[in-house]
């Protein structure tokens, strides 16, 4: 009901947000192609962030960050070969340093602690991916505006 009444207003706000978010370049890192593609579809369909690349493990992710210079890396913690924690350690020394988000299916506080200790900026539980990524995008866009 609220939605119907404020419909027009929402669209205008949406356009404004679209302009603000236009600059966000995102790298999606997960060993599940299914999840990567769902993130891509979601960001494309529901936000104005642009997915510039994908990687399936931490090694590949580090190369892609150097090559594509994304401003945001969304990365799974649990991956074969080189996991998210190790990749974060490598990425945090890069210039310019992307905003790094590690996520996990699990939500144990110890995982969050380990993610932040490795140098990640944020930790998400995958179950709550949508509201959290929305908040990150909003935060990064308004920071870029200033």
């Amino acid at each position, binding site marked *: 009901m609220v939605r119907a009444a404020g*419909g027009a207003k929402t669209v205008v706000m949406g356009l404004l947000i679209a302009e603000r978010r236009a600059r966000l370049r995102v790298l999606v890192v997960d*060993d599940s192609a299914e999840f990567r593609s769902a993130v891509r579809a979601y960001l494309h369909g529901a936000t104005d962030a642009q997915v510039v690349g994908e990687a399936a493990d931490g090694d590949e992710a580090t190369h892609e960050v150097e090559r594509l210079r994304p401003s945001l890396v969304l990365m799974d913690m*649990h991956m074969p070969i080189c996991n998210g924690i190790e990749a974060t350690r490598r990425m945090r020394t890069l210039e310019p340093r992307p905003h790094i988000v590690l996520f996990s299916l699990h939500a144990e506080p*110890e995982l969050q602690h*380990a993610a932040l200790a490795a140098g990640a900026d944020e930790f998400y539980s995958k*179950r709550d991916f949508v509201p959290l990524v929305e908040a990150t995008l909003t935060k990064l866009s308004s920071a870029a505006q200033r």
Partner: protein
Amino acid sequence: MSETLCVLLIEDSESDAGLVLRTLSQGDHPLHALRVESAAELRAALVESSWDVVISDYQLPGFSAPAALTIVREAQLDVPFIVVSGTIGEDEAVMMMKAGAADYVMKSNLLRLLPAVVREVSDARHRRARRVAEAAEAGLRAQLGDSQREAYEQLSAWHRRLELTKDEERRVLSRELHDELGQTLTALKLRLKVVPRAGPSAVPAAVASSIDDALALVDSLIDRVRKISVDLRPPLLDELGLESALRAFVESQARVSSTRWSLQTAGIGQRLAPELEIACFRLVQEAVTNVLRHAGASSASIRVARENERLSIAVLDDGCGLSGARAQACARAGHLGLVGMRERARALGGELSVSSPPSSGEPTGTRIDVLLPA
């Protein structure tokens, strides 16, 4: 899967009882159920018949789940106790779990009930089977003559192989759950989330509301997958190694028990062989469970150290000690995982020893030592 499921239901509301039974009747088992609503009726039901599971409302007129749980525990029956309530708060739920309830399910989320019941009933059946096996093994050991030692060693070796196979199966299953089911479910959730963004004009209200329902179902599936996968194999162990996983485990136990825990580690900052890490984690886990269940300790300490190519684990508590008679009583009741722990240690070429100073009436504490080649 056609064994009858015997359910003892503690519930004063006939309609709520009907709801619970309808939910359970969707499973593979024919149901046999009895509804009681007082302590006297519960006691009588426990004596008259055997039950696979007790499901209890939290608050009834003149009766409650905590009181019911006490009665079930006093009857010394290993029957899983599940609380189903519309009103239970987190504090009450934690108290119930600490008192020995197997699970709690909100009336608003009865979908969870059937899987919880199936899981707990199957766990309890396994526990019973293991108790029988352990008792048989203890009996066998007592009667052994030298000539039969070889046969016993053979049996022991099989047991060891079983432990290792179990760990490996659990690891594979946990990976499968996490990597396949978990990933697909989270992807599905994202896909569903894109739809409402098309806006109210593009998505009819009925569709939007059914998508919301679907999202709630996906969330509940993700939670279950997560829980099963953690039970099978702690996620911290794979990602962060033994030290962090142990620390997290001990901290989580410290939060829910009145025992003061301390953990000391040395030389395990670096990764060990995966089978050694999981064995060590499980050994500490089982030792901690023993202390929590039986020792009544006010403080306990754990030391895990790797030195001279050996991994030593020591768990000490200041509880009621473990006299021979008490240990045997526990083993008979199937509580003491010491047999399993010893076999686990042997499977890796290690040894386990238990010491408790001779009892002289005073609390003496117990010490469990494990040495593994590393």
